[in-house]
């Protein structure tokens, strides 16, 4: 029982950290989450992690919450999902309460704005690396490469919803690998 509590605490603290540094929301969270959950703690394998992302993209709501819920579930069941979700939300909740309170007294916080403007290119880099890392377990043969390219073109060139793209890719996978 103590083992489980220790795991839950680790998970909570880990998600607090991820939540606190995911500047820019869901996609930014992916590499940070991966660095913790796959690399540091080894709670999930690389391919399991990709599956978590896939499912998180398909369910409603903020992708960051979905990621936390699913990853938490995989690590430590229902309790894990609760703990992870609370952990990832808490830093932003507290920060927003703090900032909102100050907001109407000091409408612009120039130092913060400068900070965040500096961070953004690094975020793009972070997300690009995430794609790179995830591709290692995902692009394994020609069909996967084709699927990936098609989805990329559609995602950039059209406004087809991500859920549809993932569903289409899943059906393709089913057809190619099962039948």
């Amino acid at each position, binding site marked *: 029982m103590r083992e489980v509590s220790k795991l839950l605490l680790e998970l909570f603290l880990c998600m607090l950290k991820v*939540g*606190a540094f*995911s*500047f*820019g*929301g*869901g*996609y930014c969270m992916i*590499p*940070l989450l991966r660095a913790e959950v796959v690399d540091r703690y080894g709670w999930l394998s690389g391919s399991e992690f*990709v*599956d978590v992302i*896939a499912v998180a993209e398909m*369910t409603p*709501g*903020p*992708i*960051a*919450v979905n990621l936390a*819920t699913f990853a938490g579930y995989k690590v430590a069941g229902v309790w894990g999902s609760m703990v992870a*979700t609370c952990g990832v*939300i808490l830093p*932003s*909740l507290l920060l*927003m309460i703090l*900032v*909102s309170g100050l*907001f109407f007294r000091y*409408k612009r916080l120039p*130092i913060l*704005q400068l*900070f*965040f403007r*500096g961070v953004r*290119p*690094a*975020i*793009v*880099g*972070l*997300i*690009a*690396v*995430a*794609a790179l890392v995830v591709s290692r377990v995902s692009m394994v043969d020609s069909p*996967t490469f084709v*699927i*990936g*390219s098609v989805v*990329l073109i559609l*995602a*950039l060139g059209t406004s087809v*919803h991500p859920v549809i793209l993932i569903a289409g*890719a*899943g059906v*393709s*996978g089913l057809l*190619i*690998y*099962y039948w």
Partner: protein
Amino acid sequence: MRGRSSILWQLFVSLLRIGAFTFGGGYVMIPLIKHEVVDRRRWISQEDFMDSLAVIQSAPGPIAVNTAAFAGFRVCGTWGALAAVAGAALPSYVVMLLVAAVFSASVDHPAVAAILRGVRPAVVALILAAAVRLGERVLVDAPSMVWFVGSVVAIVAGIQPILVLVAAGVWGVGRRY
């Protein structure tokens, strides 16, 4: 006191409805929250909401959560923020939990494995697309390009992503002063 609980409840339910029907990530929720909180309920002025977006988008964490928290706080203080975030996150959490349970039980089935093999490259593509779209907006001058390339190299080399982000932010402040 009753008026306050009623507002908290309304806040919770409004965000719950938005959270339940928003597919595809947090950014999509922002206009929906705005419509509900500014246009429909008139809890916050348009100007205040727009001004807040810069802060919300800059703050860490899920954007939808930040927007909900801000709107909730504006309407009804700390409790409002809690009610709004709870509403926004709850449908997500519940659905995800159900899906996770079903998913974990079925992942060994060869058909499911086949579907996943197809889905994984799509995930890569979507992440890459997100990077491209963000990059279009953000990589507008030489320093940002440098930081982009630098952060890719640094992270691949094994430096903690958090350190890279903080360094970039600090530089952003330092270059002005």
